[in-house]
């Protein structure tokens, strides 16, 4: 097995200053291998989202060590974090599509971040077809259903061939079948390209597809 995609040691995190300071993550240790599909479970407020934003280079690491794709994030500059982010894919709870851009254009945004890309339009269309949106390429988000929009967001996250995909309860907006399609696609990518997935979800049908399930409680990862 190669170096882990994600490696966390003694990660603490707190929000607020002085009096208002509240610690939400306590000494987390975690390793996720490349190609793994890991599901993160835990009650609301247990710190799942906070952990995801730290691993996704969206927040500064305060204490402890976080290595993502070999890069130490504690003390990393904004430029370093942006460089790592470009190798990640994000699927948010809300689709966060740009209302003025068509499905294909939204997906292109996940590609153009890497500069000029050859055959970008075809690549975007291909990923959308994989997600069953081949006939919705030039639709604006307003003309798509909630599930379709979420699939466009998934396509946007996957089109740049990310090394790690972070998803925070994405299936909330996906209808049952397309939720499974998406996760199967992610699992296939894990097998074929070594794409790692860390996903927060409560969907039991997806739990079956996970390589490993982690449980969080009050800012700690339970042994399991």
């Amino acid at each position, binding site marked *: 097995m190669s170096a882990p995609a994600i490696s966390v040691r003694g990660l603490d995190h707190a929000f607020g200053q002085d009096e208002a300071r509240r610690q939400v993550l306590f000494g987390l240790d975690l390793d996720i291998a490349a190609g793994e599909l890991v599901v993160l479970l835990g009650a609301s407020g247990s710190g799942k989202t906070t952990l995801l934003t730290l691993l996704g280079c969206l927040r500064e690491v305060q204490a402890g060590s976080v290595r993502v794709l070999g890069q130490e994030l504690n003390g990393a500059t904004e430029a370093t974090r942006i460089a790592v982010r470009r190798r990640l894919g*994000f699927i948010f709870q*809300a689709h*966060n599509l740009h*209302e*003025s851009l068509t499905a294909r254009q939204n997906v292109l*945004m996940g590609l*153009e*971040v890497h500069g000029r890309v050859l055959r970008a339009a075809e690549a975007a269309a291909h990923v959308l077809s994989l997600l069953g949106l081949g006939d919705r390429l030039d639709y604006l988000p307003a003309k798509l259903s909630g599930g379709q929009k979420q699939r466009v967001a998934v396509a946007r996250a996957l089109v740049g061939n990310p090394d790690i995909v972070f998803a925070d309860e994405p299936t909330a907006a996906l209808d049952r079948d397309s939720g499974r399609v998406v996760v199967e696609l992610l699992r296939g990518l894990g097998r074929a390209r070594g794409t790692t997935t860390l996903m927060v979800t409560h969907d039991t049908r997806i739990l079956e597809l996970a390589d490993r399930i982690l449980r969080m409680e009050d800012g700690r990862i339970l042994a399991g």
Partner: protein
Amino acid sequence: MTQVLARLLGRLPIGWLQLTHNRGRLVSALAGVAFANVLVFMQLGFLGALIESIRLPYAMMEADILVQAADANTLQDGSPLPRQRMLQALATPGVASASAVYYGRLDWKQPDGTIRTLDVLGIDPRERVLRAPEVEAAREALMISGTALIDRGTRNVPPALFDGIEAGMPYTIEANNRRVTIVDTFRVGGGFGADGYLLVSDQTFLKIFRSRQAGAPNLVLLRAAPGEDPAALTARLRERIAAPDVAVRTVPEAVARDQRFQTTQRPVGVVFGFGIVIGALVGIIIVYQILATDVADHLREYATFKAIGYRQGFFLGIVLEEAVILGLLGFLPGLMATLGLYALVTQATGLPLAMPLLRPLTVLAGTIALCALSGAVATRRLARADPAELF
């Protein structure tokens, strides 16, 4: 259009797509830019008309050099000159000839009781003082005491009156209790001072303005001998007539000085300059408002793009793209409306409002620069797009 911009920018033209997605906002933004453009264009038009209307009477004078009172800032003010000055000038080698010009302002009462002001020029009709062919043709007629020519461009006078005069029906007016008969017309074009010009002989002038004295004109026009350099001759004249009460200038110098004075010292000129600044400010504020609102409305999308890995420069690019598009698209209707308004104002006031080729280019460049500035300021709000808040 999207394709063209994509080629140009090397990325999706998100600014363009964002602007065209919200048609209502786009239209009001363009109307705002166009409005600011019209404001600036009108002020520039008036300023240009002021500058041009100052030049016109000078351009008519058959002269290379002007001798004016030292306290004169324009053609219309300043003390009369002592007669000596003209003789001194004539005695200077290189001066071919000289003509005196008297200036006075006259209230011309209309049949309906309203008043038009006329700038009255008194000249010696035996000499060629003004270049206009109409004046040349009417010199004979002006020699008869009590006759005059009127400027066809005089404001607020029924055109039928001029038509009648030109058709050979002299029109008699009362000028300071003297009857003056207008026998023909000439053309200067109204300015910002008086409504028009009246041309009379020096003899007639002295009858209208009884306090003025023969031999004390407002202006002496000098013509250089053939082959004489006006600048060199002016220097020689200044030495020759070294009196503190006169100023000797070449015609272009005198025009430039008059224009400088009226545009910077007179309320009209200052107001127009101020108006340009106001117009530009209105434009900046409108564009800033539009772009800042647009940024605020897309904070979530921008936060998403930040998460994906786009840098600050990318967002600045989007807002600048929008700014330039607004500047370009708003400029055209602004220019169109301006051309219409110029024609309208020229028709209504006789002011020479014209659109020199360079002005639209300058205004366009200024519009785009100010839009870009507004856009750059509007991107400050981007700091609030925090990708950590997206999950």
